[in-house]
Structure formats: C-alpha cells, structure tokens
C-alpha cells in the first residue's frame, strides 16, 4: 500500500462521520461503525417535534429552517466552531420518485427527454429545477426499466445552508429507501419472484419491489405513522405521547384481523379507515407493477419496517388484506442486526434506513482521491 493510501486510510479513520435521519417529525443522530457485517453504534440520539421540519406545498418541499437548525444543534451537541461531518438520510417524501421503461436502444441514444417527460408528468415544475438521479434496472424483453429520484434544487440548497448554520458538513444526502433497499437486497430470497418492502415511517409509506438483483420499483405514499397518530389524537382528544403509547402498547390488531372480534376493538374502529387507505394505496401500486411486469406478478413476501412495526400484529393485517405473506424486517435480516444492542425504544426495523446507510458508507465512496485535495 502506498504512502498516500495509508494517509487516506488514516484520514478516513480519523474523520468521524455521523448519520442524520431527517423526517418531517423527527431527527435521529447516530455514530457507529459497520465492519464485516458487524455493527457497533456509539451514539443514538432521537428528537421528535410537534412542528414539522419538512412540509410539502404544491409538490415543493419546504424546510422549517429555524426549528430545524435549533434541533440540529441540540441533537448534535453543537459547540462553535466545532463542525461535524454528517451523512444525511432524508425522508422519501421530499423526493419525486418514479420508474418507467424505455427501449434498450434508447439507453445509448439518449433517454433524457423521456426522463424529462416523466418528471413533468408528476410535477408542474421545470426539469431544471430538480437534481435528478437515476438508475437502470435489469433489461427484459428489450426494454430497460429506469428508476429516477428527483429533489428540488431550492430545497437542496436550503438544506445545505441549514446544515452549514447548524455546524454540519453534509457528505452525503440520500433518500431513506437506498439504505433500506441495500439491507433487504442482501436478505432477499433466492427466487425468480420479487419481494415487497413496506417502510411505514412517520411521514410516508415507501413501498418497493426488490429481488437479489436490486430494486425493481419504488413508490412513496405521502402518509405514514403520523396519520395514525393524528387520527387517534383527534378521536381521543389526547396528546401525541398518549396516542403513541396506546398505538404501540395496546392490542389493536388481533392474530386474525378478519375475525369478527377485530371489529369490536374500539381503537381499531377509529383507525380502520386509515389502515384501509394505506392498504388500498399499496394494492394499487402492486396492481400497476403487475400490469407493467406480468411475468413478475407473484410476490414472495412483504417485509415491513419503520415506525409502524411498533404496532403489534400489523404484519398480520397486511398479510390478510393483500394475500401475501408478511413479516417484520427483524426476522429476515442478518443475525448481525438482531444482536445489535439498541435502546428500548428502537428495533432494527425502525433503524433500517440508518443501518443501511452505515453499511453503504456513501461518504467513503469515490472520495479517496479528494481527501488529499481537501
């Protein structure tokens, strides 16, 4: 190993990079390492907020700057002038996600006009207003799927500025689903049929279809665990904490959600409409996928993760309504995750995106040459 490589390695080791998960209603700040599929978490801080950090108006995400900077400084224990490096895992709701198929020849001849058209379909804004990232899928029947992920440039700049004001140097900004898909890809069953993941987070439900080759499709439903909380808070006239306690500790869903006894549970009756809304949206996404990929319509299983996995038997509700076996992520992932020592309020399923990001370590990629420049 050359001297420069050794210096690079030393710099990388010395440069502690923390992971910041930013959703509309919460922050997580984690520092840890992932080596040979073994995780070690040194810090795990969590902050919930009543006022959202992120809002989406007319399809454009906005940042609640002052509150975000205040809480970022609080969670990162900011002390001027000590800056910290962070890899940001950003809620999927602020991104415009989608996928479409193009003829294989278009991959080489130029598919950007097609990408522009797709983005224009889902938003009223100009293509140039977005930072767009895309990935090609596996070619089938002379057609290549393209997955894209767009983020409004104004929001991106605002986020960088807020990080700068909070003493953070962002080294990576990635959507939640990347880390999530990375973890699940490794645990995908060896089958020609894909599996489904439902990341039921605070502000969004990210539904994705994946197999061992990677992500096949991804879709974001802009309502999440917070909607369940709000519904319960409105019905019970209680605060968020009480609603959260009831939702996570009471038995709301029975082992057989289709039984008559299920409807006798009052909390379920309150939340039923919200559950049905989620399930219908997921069903719609699966139908669309099956139409586009008729040869892949059979799904192996549904893997659930995110905040909603705190609700007991939620996998049974999903399985009973969608007709596909459903499991919580904890049971399918590597034993290394299960042996993680986590605080009482966290499980691997609630930290999937962060653990995935820690394993991906995007701050290390393609950066060796630039450390010297820095």
């Amino acid at each position, binding site marked *: 190993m050359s001297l420069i490589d050794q210096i690079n390695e030393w710099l990388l080791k010395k440069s502690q990079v923390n992971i910041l998960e930013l959703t509309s209603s919460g922050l997580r700040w984690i520092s840890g390492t992932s080596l040979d599929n073994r995780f070690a978490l040194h810090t795990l801080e969590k902050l919930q907020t009543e006022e959202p950090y992120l809002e989406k108006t007319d399809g454009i995400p906005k940042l609640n700057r002052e509150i975000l900077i205040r809480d970022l400084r609080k969670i990162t224990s900011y002390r001027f002038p000590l800056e910290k490096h962070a890899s940001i895992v950003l809620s999927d709701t602020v991104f415009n996600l989608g996928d479409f198929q193009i003829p294989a020849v278009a991959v080489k001849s130029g598919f950007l006009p097609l990408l522009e058209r797709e983005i224009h379909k889902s938003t009223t804004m100009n293509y140039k207003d977005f930072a767009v990232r895309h990935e090609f899928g596996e070619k089938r029947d002379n057609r290549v799927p393209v997955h894209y992920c767009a983020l409004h440039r104004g929001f991106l700049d605002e986020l960088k500025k807020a990080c700068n004001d909070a003493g953070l140097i962002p080294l990576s900004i990635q959507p939640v689903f990347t880390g999530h898909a990375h973890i699940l890809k490794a645990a995908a069953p060896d089958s020609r049929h894909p599996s489904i993941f439902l990341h039921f987070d605070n502000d969004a439900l990210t539904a994705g279809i994946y197999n061992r080759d990677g992500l096949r499709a991804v879709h974001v439903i802009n309502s999440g665990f917070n909607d369940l909380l709000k519904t319960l808070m409105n019905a019970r006239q209680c605060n968020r904490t009480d609603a959260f306690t009831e939702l996570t500790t009471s038995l709301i869903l029975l082992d057989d959600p289709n039984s008559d006894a299920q409807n006798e549970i009052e909390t379920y009756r309150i939340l039923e409409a919200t559950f049905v809304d989620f399930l219908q949206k997921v069903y719609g996404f699966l139908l669309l996928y099956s139409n586009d990929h008729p040869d892949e319509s059979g799904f192996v299983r549904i893997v659930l993760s995110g905040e909603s996995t705190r609700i007991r038997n939620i996998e049974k509700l999903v399985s009973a309504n969608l007709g596909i076996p459903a499991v919580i992520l904890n049971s399918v992932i590597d034993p290394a995750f299960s042996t993680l020592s986590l605080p009482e309020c966290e499980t691997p399923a609630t930290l999937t995106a962060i653990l995935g990001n820690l394993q991906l370590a995007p701050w290390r990629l393609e950066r060796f040459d630039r*450390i010297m420049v820095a």
Partner: protein
Amino acid sequence: MTTAYEFIDREERRIRMPIYSAAIALVASVTAFVLLAGMNHSSRTLEKEYVAASERMQKESQSFIDRASGMLPQDALLNEVEQQVNAYNLKIGGKFSIWTRLFNSIENAMPEGALITAIENPFTSKALFTAEDRFFRFRVVVQNTEQANAFYMKLSEIHAFENLNFTPRGEVKIQGSTGFSIDIEFRFNETN
C-alpha cells in the same frame, strides 16, 4: 444502489478542514512569529552581554598584568643586586679561591661551544686535589681543529698557565654532535 441516488455532488463530497483549523493555523503562525522574534531579541541581548563580558574580562586581565608587573622588582634594582653579588663573589674568590681564578682564566680563553669534559690531577690521573696542588689537566672538547688551535693560542698568551702542554686526542661524539677532544696540562700560577 450505492451512489446512484447521491445528492451531494462529487466535488462537494469531501472531508474539509474544520473552521477552527484556520484559527489554529493563525495562532500557530503568530506563536511561531512571536517565538522567532523573542529568540532574535534574546540572541541580540546575549550577544551584547557576551561583548560586555569579554571587554570586562580583557580589562580585568590587563589590570592583573599591570598589578603583577607592579609586583615584580625593578630592573635597576635587580642589576644592582646582581652586581653586588658578583662583587662579593669576586671579593671572596679573589682573596680565598684559586679555583675561581683558574676557571675565570680558562673561561676567557675557551672558544664558544667548547665543553670541559674532565679535570684531573696529572700525577694521579684522578680528580683529586689538595689545596696546594697547582698542576691540572683539563680535557676539553671543541667543535673543530681550528677552534683547538685558537684555544691553544689564547691559553699560551695567558701567563698564569705555565709549562703548557697541549695534546690533541681526536674526534669524539658528545651530546649528539661531533667534536674534537684535546688535553691541556699546565701549572697554574695565580700570582701572574
């Protein structure tokens, strides 16, 4: 699914030096500058102190020399003492010592660089003399034969040396150099 969905551009994705490192660099450079200035000032002060100390030492050593010179007896006094000693010696020798007269006479005649290697009684060939003995044999080494002749000539001019007998003995090595050995026998008449 690695960097495909990365929204920080490649150029921005770098570990940069934190802001306080600039402050540290500034403080370090100021400290270094102050340190250098201090060292410079210190070296100048030390140099001045060294010059002052060397001047002081020079003055002190001069004063020591002066004091030591002052402590030495004066030349005139020394000469006077020497003359007095010589005078006393001559007085004592002149009255009571035939030997002083003998050696003074030989000294006047001996060439430069000549050595007296032996003094014997010519009758016993030993260096044993009584107070009344006036016959002497001197073995003298001169540098060459010319000196030997000159020495003989001078001795013969001095009337105190009676019955002068001069015997060349040949070349000898003495004190690392070659010389010419001669024996002179005479009767010393101190009254002449």
